[in-house]
């Protein structure tokens, strides 16, 4: 393995890694509230479930390069169209798991919460969402990994991140530079995955499950 580029340009690779992470987290920060709203609507209004889940699934099947090409006339290149694509792709994993998480909560528990006098907002924040979190966090983990992977491709439209190193390497036919990008992306994905798995352990549900 030719690690020359990584050794000689570690500052650049590190900076691009942070840029990649920032792009990915920004995309997640936009995608998650959107997915929670869509997920709640799809859960509460029963006839919306199928259309919403189908729509986000279909959007995910749009090939990424075609998606970027489609965005360029309206949004040009750079961070903005990249975020649009990442947020769209993330919806599949997020919405699917928000819906599954909310639906996994025992209706008897929700009826009890209502029967005790919680209003819909209290019910949602104190009971429904906490009980759905394990499934939602699993969705966040998958979504963030997908975002990190796709954020490599948006290097092609100059959105920053490790994709730029890789595409430059490909353009120069310089495998060592491509490899540096690959290693950094893989490292980022692995660390992110571990951190989110750790986070899952701190949800109230996980704590209760550990106790029993």
């Amino acid at each position, binding site marked *: 393995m030719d690690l020359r580029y990584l050794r000689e340009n570690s500052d650049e690779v590190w900076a691009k890694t942070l840029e990649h992470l920032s792009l990915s987290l920004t995309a997640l920060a936009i995608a998650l509230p959107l997915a929670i709203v869509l997920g709640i609507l799809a859960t509460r209004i029963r006839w919306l479930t199928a259309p919403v889940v189908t729509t986000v699934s279909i959007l995910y099947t749009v090939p990424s390069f075609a998606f970027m090409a489609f965005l360029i006339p309206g949004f040009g290149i750079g961070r903005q169209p990249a975020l649009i694509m990442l947020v769209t792709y993330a919806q599949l994993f997020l919405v699917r798991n928000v819906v599954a998480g909310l639906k996994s909560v*025992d209706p*008897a*528990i929700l*009826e*009890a*919460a*209502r*029967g*005790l*006098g*919680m*209003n819909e907002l*209290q019910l949602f924040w*104190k*009971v429904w969402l*906490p*009980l759905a979190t394990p499934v939602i966090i699993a969705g966040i983990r998958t979504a963030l990994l997908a975002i990190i992977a796709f954020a490599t491709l948006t290097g092609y439209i100059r959105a920053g991140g490790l994709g730029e190193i890789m595409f430059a390497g490909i353009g120069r036919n310089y495998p060592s530079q491509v490899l540096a990008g690959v290693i950094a992306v893989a490292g980022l994905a692995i660390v992110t995955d571990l951190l989110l798995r750790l986070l899952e352990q701190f*949800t*109230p*549900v996980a*704590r*209760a*499950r550990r*106790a*029993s």
Partner: protein
Amino acid sequence: MTAQDKPSGGSQIRLEHLTKIYPNTTAPAVDGVSLTVEPGEFVVLLGPSGCGKTTLLKMVNRIYEPTSGQIWIDDTEIHALPASQLRRRIGYVIQQTGLFPHMRIEDNVATVPKLLKWDRRRIRDRVRDLLELVGLPPDEYARRYPPQLSGGQQQRVGLARALAGEPTTMLMDEPFGALDAITRTRLQDELKRIHRQISQTILFVTHDIDEAVRLADRIVVMREGHVVQFDTPLEIVTNPADAFVSDLVGAGDVLRRMGLITVASAASGATPFQETEVEEHISGSAFLREAIGRMVESGTDRLTVLDEDGRPISELTMDDIRRAVGDEAAGEAAEVDSIRSADG
């Protein structure tokens, strides 16, 4: 004796021409029901599945909304209040317990006091008192999570949680339906004890006639959305309104009947001798079947009836049993015998 005689911490519940028709159905689930439950009364709604008893119960805390009619709790028509505010004044226990699995037992019990914004100290004291009341020592159980408890213990928590906001009305939807027979009986006794202590008005749904008889001051027998009979357990068992009620409670069978009438309700009310030579005694909450068994075993025809605290309250004689079981008893007993010999 009905609950009207007791000092009461309960509300009066009045249903007026209450009807519920579910969308896309023709027959009403509840059809023009009017009845009044007195403050502190323990009323059991009894009937086969689909008779409307659960629908009726759940209209009282607005889980379901009536198609027409009114529900009054004391002087308030319940739809005049926001649903969440109404529900904080009504205890609610369901068969599946509905405990919040991600919250500790103490937080489950504190749900309604927190919604009512009690101060922290009052909530903590209330939670401890309630866990004591339902037989779960707080030092051992308060910090645990629901999945760590047995089914019976979970329903005790459900009961404590429902009582926490000091409700004057309790709604219970087959709360002991999922428990084994021994646990169920124990919890029934404890519910009875708690009710005597606090005297809230209780509406309790069951399809189990034994449970209804054990618990109820009065029983509402329902069928196809209508109230067929609303009376004391003894009246319902000895004077069923029609063939349906008679079948439901098994009133025709003498043995069944003796299994449904409690010693306390059959006892003549004669005060027992203080220095009694009668050695045999029986709990007032036992059924006549047990009393007969006791008499046969001991060769006596009178038993001293004890209350829950073991104090003698009255006396039960063979005549009392005969009277309670009814006039046709002799004839039907013969019939039972003939069926037996036919079987043998």
